[in-house]
């Protein structure tokens, strides 16, 4: 088993709860955060043997910047101790624009972080209010200035579209501003109404609506076209990057490669086995404190499962999957493993060219219709 090349670190805290988010997160007191980070580092210690081949680190959440500065410092210092940062090409952290201060940016810088993913979602006041985001356009501008001054060159901006009043002119404004402020990577997600979110509840009460599917499909195509004109590569369903700024960490997932993870609710994938940690913070800490692994679920994937996932994940990328790599990895020809590919090619839902199999870009917005055939 080769050692994983990516490490995910989970911080399940937020300073406030966004209306669309269904991830496990808490607005917690300082003591609780301290206790958590302490155990998170401890889990890192327990697993440090498997950190030798790491090339990317991703600290996500929740909102990692919801940690008090000294705790964040403590975490980064310890990760630096456990991991040889010399080999790390990409070190990302998710951040709220209004959390970015010169002090925080400096801690990140010193901790070795070289990529910031900003949860901007939009620059539109009304939209930010509906989404429950607490920052303003000005906050984002300031944050990006601070980061630029400290030499951060790799900046992702998360945007959300698909609210009932969204139109292309409106979304274009967001894209334009993100680019003007120096984003090198843009994740443009369509809004999903998840169960147990505030928006879902408002939707059920008739107080909130999503954009109609047809209009959203149009919007999606226009977003892609616009960003391409502005020099971005559309490299995954919802992700766009300047040349060489694709997220290496996320590509590890989409290439269906092994990855390590630490933290409550984090998952990791080693060999052919996926582990998922306990979500509840206290139980997680308890487990780590006693020196036991903190997973609650272990799934051993058959080679069929893995081939399925290879397709489900790989076809998210515009470049799709490599047929020779598939064969090398699973010992079977991709077309043989999934005869349905031929039909999908006939239906023009898939294309095979130069060793690659992929969903044509103009059909990406229907990708579930393709992927369901691999289940």
């Amino acid at each position, binding site marked *: 088993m080769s050692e994983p090349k990516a490490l*995910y670190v989970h911080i399940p805290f937020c300073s406030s709860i966004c209306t669309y988010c269904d991830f496990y997160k808490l607005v917690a007191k300082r003591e609780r955060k301290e206790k958590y980070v302490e155990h998170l580092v401890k889990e890192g210690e327990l697993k440090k043997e498997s950190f030798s081949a790491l090339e990317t680190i991703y600290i996500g959440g929740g909102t990692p910047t919801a940690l008090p500065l000294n705790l964040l410092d403590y975490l980064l210092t310890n990760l630096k101790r456990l991991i040889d940062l010399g080999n790390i090409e990409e070190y990302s952290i998710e951040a709220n624009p209004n959390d970015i201060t010169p002090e925080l940016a400096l801690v990140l810088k010193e901790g070795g972080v070289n990529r910031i993913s900003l949860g901007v979602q939009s620059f539109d006041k009304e939209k930010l209010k509906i989404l429950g985001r607490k920052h303003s356009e000005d906050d984002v501008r300031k944050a990006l200035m601070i980061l630029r001054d400290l030499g951060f060159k790799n900046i992702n901006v998360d945007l959300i579209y698909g609210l009932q009043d969204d139109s292309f002119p409106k979304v274009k404004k967001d894209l334009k501003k993100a680019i003007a402020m120096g984003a090198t990577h843009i994740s443009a*997600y*369509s809004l*999903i109404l998840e169960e147990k979110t505030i928006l879902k509840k408002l939707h059920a009460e008739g107080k909130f609506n999503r954009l*109609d*599917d*047809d209009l*959203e*499909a149009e919007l*999606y195509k226009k977003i892609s076209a616009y960003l391409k004109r502005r020099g971005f590569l559309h490299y995954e*369903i*919802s992700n766009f990057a300047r040349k060489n700024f694709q997220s290496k960490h*996320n590509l590890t*997932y989409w290439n269906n490669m092994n*990855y390590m*993870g630490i933290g409550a609710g*984090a*998952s*990791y*994938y080693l060999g052919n086995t*996926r582990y*998922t940690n306990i979500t509840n913070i206290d139980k997680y800490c308890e487990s780590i404190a006693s020196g036991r692994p903190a997973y609650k679920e272990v*799934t051993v994937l058959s080679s069929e499962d893995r081939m*399925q*996932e290879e397709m*489900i*994940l790989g076809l*998210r990328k515009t470049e799709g999957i490599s047929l020779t790599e598939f064969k090398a990895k699973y010992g079977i020809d991709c077309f043989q493993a999934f005869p349905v590919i031929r039909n999908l090619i006939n*239906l023009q*839902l898939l294309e095979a060219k130069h060793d690659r199999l992929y969903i044509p870009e103009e059909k*990406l*917005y*229907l*990708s*579930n*219709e393709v*992927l*369901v055939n691999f*289940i």
Partner: protein
Amino acid sequence: MEKKNLLERQKRIRNFSIIAHIDHGKSTLADRILELTNTVDPRAMKSQVLDSMDLERERGITIKLNAIEVNYRSDDGNDYIFHLIDTPGHVDFTYEVSRSLAACEGAILIVDATQGVQAQTLANAYLAIDNDLEIIPVINKIDLPNADPEKAKKEIEEVLGLDASDALLVSAKSGEGVKEILETIVKKVPEPKGDPDAPLQALVFDSYYDQYRGIIPTIRVINGTIRRGDKIWMMATDAHFEVTEVGAYNPHEVKRDFLGPGDVGYLAATIKDIDKVRVGDTITHADRPAAMPLPGYRRLNPMVYCGLFPVDNADYEELKDALTKLALNDSALVFEPETSQALGFGFRVGFLGMLHMDIVQERIEREFKLNLIATAPSVIYKVNLTNGKTIMVDNPALLPEPQFIQSIEEPFVKTEIMSPSEFVGPIMEICQNKRATFINMKYIDPTRVMLEYEMPLSEIIFDFFDRLKSSTKGYASFDYQFSRYLESDLVKLDILIHGEKVDALSTIVHRKSAYRRGHAIAVKLKKLIPRQLFEVPIQAAIGNKVIARTNVKAMGKNVLAKCYGGDVSRKKKLLEKQKEGKKRMKAVGNVEIPQSAFLAVLSIDDE
């Protein structure tokens, strides 16, 4: 047993049915009788013992026949053997009712004291009268505050023409008056005639399949005696068997040494071949046969046909097996293979009516776990061809091209609708819309009216009942029987999906309503067919002429925006759910059509 004792025993047998309109309390009364006679331990009593199928209990109706032996010590000091033969109350099951009644000498006629005589009370009472049964009128639900027993009595006399002066007043729910019913049965229901020494004549009135003992016929012995070891001959199917067991139901099977005249029970004879047991056949001894079979009963012909197809073509054999097993004790169910271009291999199945159809479908899905697609039901058309020949068509897809058709006749039925008089207006309006011809209107009393109409059966299967119920707040009841074939101006309405004619969606409609209905079906299908990868036109056409058209737009978006690491298992669940949904669809050409669409032609609001 001595002959004297046998005759003595026979004198104490009473065979009876309970007949009623649906919900008038038949099964509740049966339960009380079982309790009162200690046939079933009250503590072990499931509500409505006779309704043994889940489906029956859920719908509160009795579908299958049940025959239970009950021992009763009468006030006259003698012990009696009752056979309670249950009957279905619904209009579709008239045939089954007549089967039960043929095994009886008496019938308890229940009338709900709050509702009075209803359409099926009438239909069932006439059947009992036809069968020469002693009818005991019982007025039930007298415990309800709005009960009006006097009015119910009056209706029994005026509408049914039965003497109701001795009608028993009962609350099957509380048990009040039930004992009096049992005493009345002893006194009024005639003892079975028949000679225990005569050649055997036993009527098969039901049968079911037992995994270990084969097919088990339920029988009523008319003459002679049947025992274990007897060699028997089925007179109609000409099959021979050796009896391995005889018994009765109490309500569970109890083995007996013999069954004599008047006895109702079962026999086992290692019968493997379903075709050898026909309901209505007469069983006699092979070595000493009866001279004549008993008068069987008229086999009722199906009135409504529909196509049943497995969603998964691989389930064809299983569907065949399911239908074969159901037909075993449902002789009104007929089926033959059918091939549809759209739906593949399946069966054309004939039913007595819509409820019968619903129940059969539901039983197949539940008891045999098969996913079905049912096409819209059709009546049987008599098509007179230009070459002078006449053919019967029960499948709209098989209607010849118009140039070969001289005329088409369709079955008409006579309906009797009973309703509070305030709803006469709405009822007349519905009937007019349904191409009905008014025959007669009769006031049962100042507040209740009975309307008679003649109308095409096809209009009845096309949501007549739902409409009648909704415009009379559920108060109207109705019954119908076939009257005759009449010529109508009919055309075949085809549905084209993505340019392809879908045979399973063709219907035969009256020319006048073809446009309206074609449009309504197209609109309905647009709602039911999920969006595909491409735009799908839906057209309704008569011959080559398109009379209505709509489009199902191409799919909007279907994508999961975000998916990281551990998310993949969540994503997989999402896709699995989506795939599950697709399983219930049928691909016609490149278009995936849900099961419900094939019945769309039925439930459209075409006014």
